Structure formats: C-alpha cells, structure tokens
C-alpha cells in the first residue's frame, strides 16, 4: 500500500528558509518506512531536486504549488497528503483531495500512524484494505 507525502519546503522543512520544524531525519524515516516522498513548493523545480539529491532521498515528484494535481495524476498511491505552512498549502491540498497537516502538526510525524493493521488510512478517514 502506498502513501504519498508531499512536503512544502520554506517554513515547513528544517532546510527551508525560514526553517520549519520537520527535520530531514523525519522525512528519511518516512521514506525508509515505505512512504513515497515528494515536494510541492514555490521553489524552482531544480532547487527542489537539488535539495533531495543533497540529502539522498529519492523524491518521486517535485512540483510547483499549482501542480499538485499533476503529482496526483503521475503517481499512483492509495492516499495522498500534503504538509505546509501557508493558507495556499491548505487550499491546494483541499482542492486536490490531499489530506493536509500544518507544519507544526508534522513535527509529530502523524503519517506514521496511517498504516493500520487493515491497510492505509486515507484523508477521508476510511481504511483501504491491503
């Protein structure tokens, strides 16, 4: 079962400017637990790709803020989540059927609880059996 986590960068990740509370270690933990990692940010795509390369985390998709639907179309997953620090993050997540966490919520790594004994918890709250 696949869960996609899309991270905003500035104000969300520790390497953003301003720095957010979500560390690259948390992102790595999610990656190693099998989550699909992606970014959706106002940074240029090449800047996003350079960041993932620097931390050796293979991102499945990098997108500008308006391209969250492209991410959904390109990457098959059972559930999609976006984590960000701006109203626009919340807005694009809602418009595209992504679950959403604020940056400050993300520091407790709430995604780690999404994999249930029955499968995956989707943004709508139901379990998708595995």
């Amino acid at each position, binding site marked *: 079962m696949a869960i996609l986590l899309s991270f905003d960068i500035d104000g969300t990740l520790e390497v953003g400017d301003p720095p957010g509370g979500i560390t690259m270690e948390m992102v790595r933990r999610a990656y190693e637990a099998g989550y699909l990692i992606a970014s959706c940010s106002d940074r240029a795509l090449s800047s996003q790709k350079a960041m993932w390369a620097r931390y050796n985390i293979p991102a499945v998709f990098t997108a500008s803020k*308006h391209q969250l639907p492209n991410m959904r179309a390109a990457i098959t997953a059972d559930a999609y989540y976006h984590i960000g620090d701006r*109203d*626009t993050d919340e*807005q694009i997540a809602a418009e595209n059927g992504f679950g959403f966490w604020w940056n400050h919520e993300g520091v407790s790594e709430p995604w780690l609880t999404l994999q249930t004994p029955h499968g995956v918890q989707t943004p709508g709250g139901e379990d998708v059996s595995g």
Partner: protein
Amino acid sequence: MPRPVPAPDPLSKPFWDACAQGKLMVQKCTMCDRKQFPPEATCRNCGWAFNLTWIPTSGRGTIVGYSVTYDTRINAWVPDQPFNNAVIALEEDPAIKFHSNLPGVKVNEVPVGAKVEVYFLDLEDGIKLPEWKLVHH
C-alpha cells in the same frame, strides 16, 4: 469573506452617492472639457478646482484587457481565487477606465473587445459597487 468595502471620503462621496442611486458618475472639468476618474481635488490638466463638476456617464464600455489573479495580497479575496480582473474603457471616453471582475464570466475566458454595461452590486454599509456585464445582442 465579503470583498473589501469602500469607505467614502469627501472627494469620493459624490461618486458613491451616485452609485447608490444606480448612476455611474465621473468628474469633468468644464473649462478643459475633460473627464477625470478617479476623482481628484483639482483638474489634472489645468490645475483648477472651480470648474470640476460631476456628470453621468453612459454606463457602457468595452473590455480592453484582463488579468487573472491567482495569488492576491488582499486577504478578503483569497477564498475567491482565481478570479478575473478585467479593465473597462468608457464608451464616450476610452481613456477613462474601470475595474471589473466580470461576475459570471468563466475564469480566463474574458472576451477582450466585447461590449459591457454597468450594474451595481450591493455591499455592506449601503455601498453599491459598479460592476460590468456583457451586452448580448
């Protein structure tokens, strides 16, 4: 969230009062025979205030161009993004311009060159805001 509401001042009050009565007015300098909008304390051409008066307009115009706002700095408009921002040139003096969101026209489908006519939206505080709609023949 409602759109920001104009707060009339002594200079703009005649305009908003006229809107409240369903009329679109602009200033005119009778000496220069020149229309002026938005209103100013003096005629921008001759610099005098004495000959400035308010006159009604035809309320008709043409769409001369547009933008579509996707990321506004105006908080009240954020929930309505994206939205059209059209510019209307007044029929009898195309140098006089007005803003319009062209309610009812799909985002990014603004027919540049189309004829429009004014109508008024009810806002809070009794303000009636000039808006524009396409004229269908």
